[in-house]
């Protein structure tokens, strides 16, 4: 089973690598730097507080996120969570409210299923994360998004790296707004695909660094993103 998983992961790494390289030509570059603190209590609950600073390229401010995530492990391999995220972004409509920054709020909840845990596979993860998120913007249309993320991760034995790949699909329930003669019709559609390839670096038992490189393919926009993501996590 593990051998098959490794074969599959190698193939997936290769495929996503090809996607990232071929997509990098006409895309914008973003840098996401984050830090998170996680605490688990009563073995089944955990709370995570994170901060992330996003840059366009490597020097231009894009977004600043503060996120709180509460999760509950119901059964081996099945976890639910609820998240709140507050973002500060540059205000493109500052002439309307005379404020240089705008605040966006996001509430999401979801289910994280770790399939290989059912089979007691320790070092390899195959997770499916389904998330429903609601975004509230001041000068943009509110968003209701369904996200489906597939993650493969393998913890290399006796080595501090855990390489991973992930694919995520973004379906926006209110993506399209059509103004007909006498009514407004709102319909959903795929908003984006996002791919990540990277590795967790185990600094100590309670600290790890996540390094990854991703690509966000926006369906109705040419502003595709290449993403360099660095995230430090501490368990307390």
């Amino acid at each position: 089973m593990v051998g098959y998983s490794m074969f599959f992961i190698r193939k997936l790494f290769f495929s996503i690598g090809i996607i990232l390289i071929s997509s990098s030509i006409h895309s914008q570059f973003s840098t996401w730097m984050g830090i998170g603190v996680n605490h688990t209590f009563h073995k089944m609950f955990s709370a995570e507080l994170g901060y992330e600073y996003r840059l366009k390229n490597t020097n231009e401010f894009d977004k600043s996120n503060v996120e709180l995530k509460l999760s509950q492990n119901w059964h081996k391999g099945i976890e639910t969570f609820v998240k709140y995220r507050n973002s500060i972004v540059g205000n493109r409509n500052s002439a309307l409210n005379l404020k240089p920054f705008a605040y966006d709020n996001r509430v999401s909840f979801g289910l994280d299923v770790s399939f290989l845990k059912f089979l007691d596979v320790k070092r390899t993860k195959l997770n499916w994360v389904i998330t429903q998120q609601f975004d509230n913007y001041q000068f943009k249309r509110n968003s209701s998004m369904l996200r489906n993320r597939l993650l493969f991760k393998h913890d290399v034995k006796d080595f501090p790296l855990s390489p991973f790949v992930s694919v995520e699909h973004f379906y926006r329930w209110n993506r399209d707004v059509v103004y007909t003669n006498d009514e407004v019709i709102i319909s959903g559609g795929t908003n984006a695909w996002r791919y990540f390839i990277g590795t967790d670096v185990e600094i100590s038992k309670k600290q790890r660094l996540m390094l990854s490189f991703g690509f966000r393919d926006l369906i109705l926009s040419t502003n595709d993103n290449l993403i360099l993501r660095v995230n430090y996590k501490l368990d307390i």
Partner: protein
Amino acid sequence: MKQTFLLLLLVLVIAACKKIEGPGGTSAIRGQLTGQDYSFGDKEITTVSFTSGATIEHGDYWLLNSTENSKLYYIYYTNPTWISSADPQLQGRIGIAVSFNYSDSNIEIAQRTLDSINQQNDLPFELSLTQDILTVTSKFSGEVVDADDYTTPFSVDISNQGTPNMLGDTFGRAGERVYIIYGDNTYSANSIRTDEEGKFSFEGLQIGTYTIYAISEDTIQNGKFNRISKTIEITEKKQIVDGGVFNVFY
């Protein structure tokens, strides 16, 4: 579980983000811009021919107007031999009394009338007298409600109308700009151009009050422009509000 639920509720409350007028909604305001060609209005010229004092009654009056609403006049004739007041006390008008005798000739009546009117300050017209004909020329171009002889036997004629001349038909104008002001702001935040029928549609608006306007040439003063505006309210999401017709002059 109860705590988790309360926490979730708290999070949702925090997430409530105040929306104001502007982009980020699902409603629209539509309308049509129509236009009419015109030629500038002229200075209105009124001539009044007077009769002799024997034909005038104590209390007779005639009406004289101007382009300014605050400067509308009535000229009434008072004979000193009468005890009662000759003033008809018209509201919204400035009364000018002209004292006369029944023995006055038409030229004397004309001269007395001219002298009485000239006693007023900041007249919006210029006066000239030729024998018994008083010529009143408006200082400003534009529409003036015609003077009226009312109870007097005088002859009042308009020799030159100040009304702008409208040329052709009114129809939807293509490619013209229509502006939108969000909420109580003073200046427009966005503008769009009309289609081939003069129609326009501002879309993606949030609930709130908006001012839609177009720019029209002033029909009186050359080089001056006016806003033709309407205040329109969006009261719910996914609403299409008909802003109606905005008629401008070219």
